């Protein structure tokens, strides 16, 4: 007999498919937490495919590592006993989302099991789950790291299963399983049953060209609801301004997108995103997301797949700075000739592709360097200062997201003579559903070329961002205004550097004491 453990709809889908394709004639049980069944009661109808659907009361207790093996075993033995089974009743145990209490139980008791990745490609990105758990569940983080449940290194793991088509930086030996392709392989009668269990409609009429998958970021406490709304407002304004979006919320995402984005279609039916290709009546050209792993399973069904990435989740509030920097580069006819140091390359590339930037017919030979040093360190500063001293006609644009002022050097104050501040003014144009910060932000340009300096000084722009409800503006500064802005920059740079040294001093003192 085989046991499948699932926590999300994606896991259930995997379990159903894997069971039908590999254990069609075998006895099998599906084990799910009661919270999943509560949200999706039709899962109990899978009894036709599984011999039993075991429902357990999910929890992740606070106990010490020394006790966890016994306590977790006692807990699951009791839960399984009510169904007349125990872990030893199963020839194989497939655990989707091993970084749960069941994973801890099996690993700490050295019970062999098959590791199934939590989401497509996640086996190759163990840090992602660590990041999620680190924000809200320190105990979980500690146990799962200790027992090798993020990178599937626990000795009792017999096999690993995941989607090999998803790019990964890690070379992990695993069995390939594509949930979307597998759906086509199972018998038609089961396919229809699966769709029915997941409430997936036969088809959905869509009117748009970009399918956007959301995530339940606030629900996972990764950010507040206000921040979740703002990240989507920002994304839609900067990357999909003239696109017709079709929003598919994550099954657990309850955000009110219909109110926030009335111009877009929202698919409210709750079903795993892996079923999307089989239910959309019209083929959409692009699929996009911030970090949903669901995109990796179905990307091949679209011409383009856009994933903004985990860094964007932290830095989306600086999209205006990136955008304005690129507008400046565009005005210098240099959008084709950009080099990046420390910036979020994904944001830059996607903005260039989707942000409506024009490539010039008369491209300049000058390079525009986009620089954003996330955290000031002496070595990085030296690299930047060397670059500034080396270049002549090229332009450096400092995004300065962390206000590190990496171009500041106490002994090289002449650098400020070539600095041009570019203040970004944001004005609120809507009272409702407004979540942005309207305080002024500044990026800094550096060039020794008089021609480029003049062009940058004369650069102006204005744009309304309808989803965010703000007007974005860059105005040309008078000589006096520019001098004041440079002075403000110098003051803030000095303060930041002082603060950096003070913090470092404090850390040193703490270490020595």
């Amino acid at each position, binding site marked *: 007999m085989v046991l499948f453990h699932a926590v999300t709809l994606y896991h259930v889908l995997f379990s159903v498919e894997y069971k039908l394709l590999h254990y069609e004639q075998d006895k099998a049980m599906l084990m799910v937490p009661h919270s999943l069944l*509560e*949200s999706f009661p039709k899962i109990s109808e899978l009894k036709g495919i599984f011999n039993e659907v075991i429902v357990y009361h999910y929890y992740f207790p606070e106990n010490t590592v020394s006790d966890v093996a016994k306590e977790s075993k006692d807990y699951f033995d009791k839960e399984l006993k009510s169904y007349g089974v125990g872990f030893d009743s199963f020839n194989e145990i497939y655990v989707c989302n091993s970084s749960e209490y069941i994973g801890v139980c099996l690993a700490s008791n050295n019970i062999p099991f098959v590791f199934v990745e939590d989401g497509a490609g996640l086996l190759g990105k163990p840090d992602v789950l660590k990041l999620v758990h680190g924000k809200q569940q320190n105990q979980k983080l500690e146990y799962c790291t200790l027992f090798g449940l993020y990178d599937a290194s626990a000795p009792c793991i017999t096999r690993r299963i995941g989607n090999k088509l998803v790019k990964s930086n890690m070379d992990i030996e695993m069995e390939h399983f594509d949930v979307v392709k597998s759906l086509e392989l199972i018998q038609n009668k089961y396919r229809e049953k699966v769709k029915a269990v997941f409430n997936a409609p036969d088809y959905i009429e869509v009117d748009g060209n970009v399918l956007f998958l959301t995530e*339940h970021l*606030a*629900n996972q*406490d990764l950010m*507040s*609801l*206000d921040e979740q709304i703002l990240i989507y407002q920002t994304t839609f304004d900067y990357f999909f301004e003239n696109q017709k979006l079709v929003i598919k919320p994550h099954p657990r995402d*309850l*955000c*009110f*997108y*219909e*109110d926030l984005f009335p111009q877009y279609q929202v698919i*409210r039916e709750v079903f795993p995103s892996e079923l999307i290709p089989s239910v959309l009546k019209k083929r959409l050209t692009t699929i996009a997301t911030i970090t949903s792993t669901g995109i990796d399973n179905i990307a091949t069904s679209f011409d383009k797949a856009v994933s903004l990435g985990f860094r964007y989740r932290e830095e989306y509030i600086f999209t205006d700075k990136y955008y304005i920097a690129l507008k400046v580069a565009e005005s210098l006819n240099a959008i084709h000739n950009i080099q990046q140091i420390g910036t979020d390359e994904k944001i830059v590339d996607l903005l260039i592709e989707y942000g409506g930037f024009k490539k010039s017919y008369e491209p300049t030979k000058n390079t525009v360097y986009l620089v954003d040093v996330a955290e000031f360190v002496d070595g990085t500063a030296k690299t930047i200062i060397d670059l500034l001293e080396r270049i002549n006609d090229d332009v450096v644009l400092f995004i300065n997201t962390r206000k590190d002022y990496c171009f500041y050097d106490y002994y090289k104050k002449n650098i400020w003579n070539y600095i041009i501040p570019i203040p970004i003014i944001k004005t609120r144009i809507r009272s*409702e559903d407004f979540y942005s910060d309207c305080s002024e932000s500044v990026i800094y340009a550096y060039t020794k070329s008089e021609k480029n300096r003049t062009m940058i000084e004369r650069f102006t722009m204005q744009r309304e961002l309808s989803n965010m409800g703000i007007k974005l503006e860059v105005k040309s500064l008078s000589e006096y205004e520019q001098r004041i802005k440079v002075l403000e920059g110098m*003051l803030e740079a*000095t*303060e*930041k550097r*002082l*603060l950096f040294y*003070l913090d470092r001093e404090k850390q040193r003192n703490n270490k020595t004491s």
Partner: protein
Amino acid sequence: MNISFADTKLHKVFVDNNLYIKHEYDNYLAVNRRNGKNNRFKEWIFLLRVNLAYLILNRNSNKEKISNHTDKIPSLNKPESEIANRTPEIHFVQNLLQYDIISFDVFDTLVLRPFSKPTDLFMVIGNRLGIMDFAEVRIDAEKQAREEQKVKSGNTEVTIYDIYEKVNRMTGLDASVGVNTELEVELDYCFANPYMKNVWRILQNQNKRFVITSDMYLPKEMIAKILDKCGYQGYESIYVSCDYHCSKYRGGLFKNVRNDYSDKMIIHIGDNYTSDVQSAQKNGIDAHYYANCHSIGKQYRPDKMSYLIGSFYSGIVNTYLHNGHKKYDPYYEYGFIYGGLYVVGFCNWIHKQAIEKGIDKLLFIARDGCIYQKVYDMYFNDIPCQYIYWSRISNIKYSIEKQRVNFINNIARNKASSVQAVTFDDVLDSVSLGCLKEKLKEFGINGGAVITKENYKEFEDFLISNDEIIRQVYLNQERFAQQYLSDCIDGNCKVGVVDVGWKGTGPLGIKYLVEEKWKLKTTVYPFMAGSLAYEVTEAINEVQNDTISAYMFSRLDNADLCDFQRYHNKGTNCIYFELFTQAMHPSFAGWDDTGNMMFAVPEVENYKVVKKIHEGIMDFALVYKQFSDNDIYLRNISGRDAFIPFQMIVRKLDYIKKYFGDFAFARSIAGKQSDQSIETINMILEKIGV
């Protein structure tokens, strides 16, 4: 069979017969049961005490506020906005998804009002109607209408029209004018609870169905208008007690809801534990208790403020911090709760003074003026204003001929009692008098020695005997000061100069320079938040002869507050008060010999905190402005009222020590340039034994 107390005759006698008793008792139950304290014996004791106060000692609701003065303390364990411990909206709704019908209470649940009690709105209605003592009349009219109704029909449910008939009888006011004015005021002040608004929107997009259930004298058309104004649309029905002649409290209203949706799963959400939770549950409706924002915040709001402003201030703070939508850090809260009212009040007072005196331009002195100017700008645009760099040290330098005592005290006596050890050379360098270092030897002073209480008198003698040199040094720099201030004054005849306090040396120094020394054709009017000096006779003449105008206190007005500021906490209160008005730049130190502006050591480690405090103050100012836009008289905040929240927070210093202990603070001028370490508040407190 279990009979609950609410069903008994005793309950009728001791609770239901008096609205104020009922209100207090419900609040008591709500707060205690929310905290898991469910002691029936204590509840009865409380009830007897309230009955004694209202029925025998003849207390009414307003008097309670005055007589029941206690020294409340702020939330010390965590920021006040975390006290309610509400789950974020996105988690809160998870428990509601299983229901078909969600019933919402209106007031203090879907809709909030910026007054600590609903009846306090009657004061504003009275002001609009121009009827003296209207609040009492309106309360009495409702009581009469309910009593009459009870005799007529056995229930106490009345409409607003019934109430204004009684008002008409008592005052002659046309009932329809009264009704319309009350509705107008409700519409002006009711605002959507941001927490519940999100809950509503989430559930609406999950295709949940809503009903509104309220015990209220406003008929459903008026409730609908209020809900519409607050952005709540898409509900199916409004069940309001005055229309149905039955209430949530007695259960009749819930019976109607239950009957209309007999086959549905229903949950009701409301802020009154008895009416919204117990009564709903008794009638087969699940309930969720949303603790009343005012009940949560009440324990942290000061008691001694004037009634209307006190209620408005408390209402704003309670509804802002305790609705559950956002949590704030203690620095933001320090600005919002304890500093916002004073800055708003001060700015409005400045404007009033400026109009009365015909001021052409206002100059806000660094660094305290930074936040003042921002808030002033938010409220007014008729008199131009400017933030100017000025400071005690620059003032003393350029008016040294008038400030010799101050100068010597600041750089000799004060340094001797400083937490930080400072040498004679350090002090001279810091005030641009490095040229005198060589001369110290002639007086037998070792420049590298630390100034102490034992040797500072010799240093004083040294400074006095070098008076001419000192004057000459500062005279060279003074022309830059003159040019700068002339540019700022910009030819205006009457200029107001704004500073936090205390002796007024900053604005008085500017007044002296502009009017007497430079003889510019400008009159300077110093405006200060408070006038205070080390000795009771100091600066007394300037206050007495109206040279200085002070908002909150001086030796002439609110002298008790002056004493509190001066003597409580061993004279350190000004430090905590000035936390509100720090700026994110170093203190201005004057000009050098070539005209460059000089600044002291930047306390960069403070700037994050300062930014948060400013955000809190700015947000309070914005919210206060929005709510008072239709009744500007609410901006007449007395200096006493403005000071009371601060008085509360420093009555005991636990809050300050906990959150601001590491705040770098240079109490006196002339920091030690060679070391650049600065005193922290905890260091200062430790030294003086507070």
